[in-house]
């Protein structure tokens, strides 16, 4: 399927990391040109990645300082990337914004107390952005995953995540915005 990404300029945050590397590879395979961090202002596609927070004892993890740091890195960091890219996207009336977030955003994950609260902020962010930028034919979507889900082959899961990201960034996905797709092999309990 031709995703129409040939020649599009894409910035993938943490493109060396996980699952950024898989996403960058998938976009490059579709002919997208990968940008470096100082070129976000030219991006047609931005993939922000909220790194999963450490897990463990709630009282030890949820300090004020740690909460501020987590919020700054994931929510404020994603907001900043989107803001840097939007003027260009609005001017050309085309753009794709993606945030890859912990699945804790929609399903409480035991032990992941920081993600259980911070990730929901990411959902409020991408969803509001999707409503605001839609009239410019810019879409904003989320892909959710649990980095410690161990029932599936990790490489295989990365391939599905990257596939979902590439598809959501495609031309044919122009009418899909404000959706969060969980890549968890359908294991969760919730209907939506």
């Amino acid at each position, binding site marked *: 399927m031709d995703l129409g990404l040939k020649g599009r300029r894409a910035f993938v945050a943490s493109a060396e990391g996980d699952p950024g590397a898989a996403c960058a590879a998938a976009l490059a395979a579709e002919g997208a040109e990968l940008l470096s961090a100082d070129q976000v202002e030219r991006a047609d596609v931005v993939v922000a990645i909220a790194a999963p927070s450490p897990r463990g004892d709630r009282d030890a993890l949820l300090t004020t300082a740690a909460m501020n740091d987590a919020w700054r890195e994931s929510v404020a960091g994603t907001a900043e990337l989107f803001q840097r890219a939007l003027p260009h996207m609005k001017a050309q009336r085309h753009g794709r914004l993606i945030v890859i977030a912990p699945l804790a955003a929609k399903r409480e994950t035991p032990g992941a107390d920081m993600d259980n609260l911070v990730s929901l902020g990411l959902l409020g962010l991408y*969803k509001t952005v999707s409503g605001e930028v839609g009239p410019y034919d810019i879409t904003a979507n989320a892909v959710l995953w649990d980095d410690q889900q161990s029932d599936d082959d990790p490489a295989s899961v990365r391939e599905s995540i990257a*596939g979902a990201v590439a598809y959501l960034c495609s031309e044919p996905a122009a009418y899909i915005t*404000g959706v969060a797709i969980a890549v968890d092999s359908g294991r969760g309990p919730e209907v939506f």
Partner: protein
Amino acid sequence: MDLGIEGRVALVSGGSKGIGFATAQRLLTAGAKVMIVARNAQTLEAARGRLAADADDRIEALSADMTDEAGVASAIQATVDRFGPISIAISNVVGHVIDPKEAGPHAGHFEDVAPADFMSEFKQLLLSAWYLARGVIPAMKEQGWGRIANVGSTVAREPRWELPHMLPNAVRPAVAGLYRGLARDLAPFGITVNNIMTGSIATERNGDYFTWLAAERGVDRGEMLAQMYAQGPIRRPGKPEEIASLIAFLSSDRARHVSGQSIAVSGGRSRHLY
């Protein structure tokens, strides 16, 4: 993107027009063998002819009623006989009829619809999806690979009470629940099950519906639509191809971990966070 489904056998219901037709086209382009099923034999044959232009012998068509258990069974059997075991099954059945003069459950608000209408809508939308899934699952389990998707509606999550949608408002959520449960049960077998929540898609049927609705309300059709699309983030109706491309992605080999999802293709009109 290489979908990795070359040679796979797909069954697409409602395949003669609109979303079903566009889906068949996408899957054929990816190298799948496709059986399209619809009730109207004449429209179906025309669709088969158009699809065959690029697909040679990888396309077949069968007239059957996919809301009927025997109809679904006959469609599955015909597909297996023609192409072999089914790997991809797309449930795409419409619900209530638009024109009140036609037989079947009608568009209406709560007090307009009879109990029999609720039963008919349930048969058309939920039982049809259930028959299809139940019919294809055994062979998918044997293959250790399968893709099942339902073409549903955003009212599965957000009912629309400003429109006469009582029937789908009640039945679409049930289909989402059904497919969600199947997804969890089938994860160990390499089978994914997803539900697509379509918004307003520019199909012939939707066009007829808006013509009827504008007349019903005594308003100008063009103005009514302009007002409607001015409200959403993406200010236009969706295209059948935009649903078809999502179905193609979900049917791909690499989408193997995307399951149990109800995905809105509505130009962002739904307000839920996830």
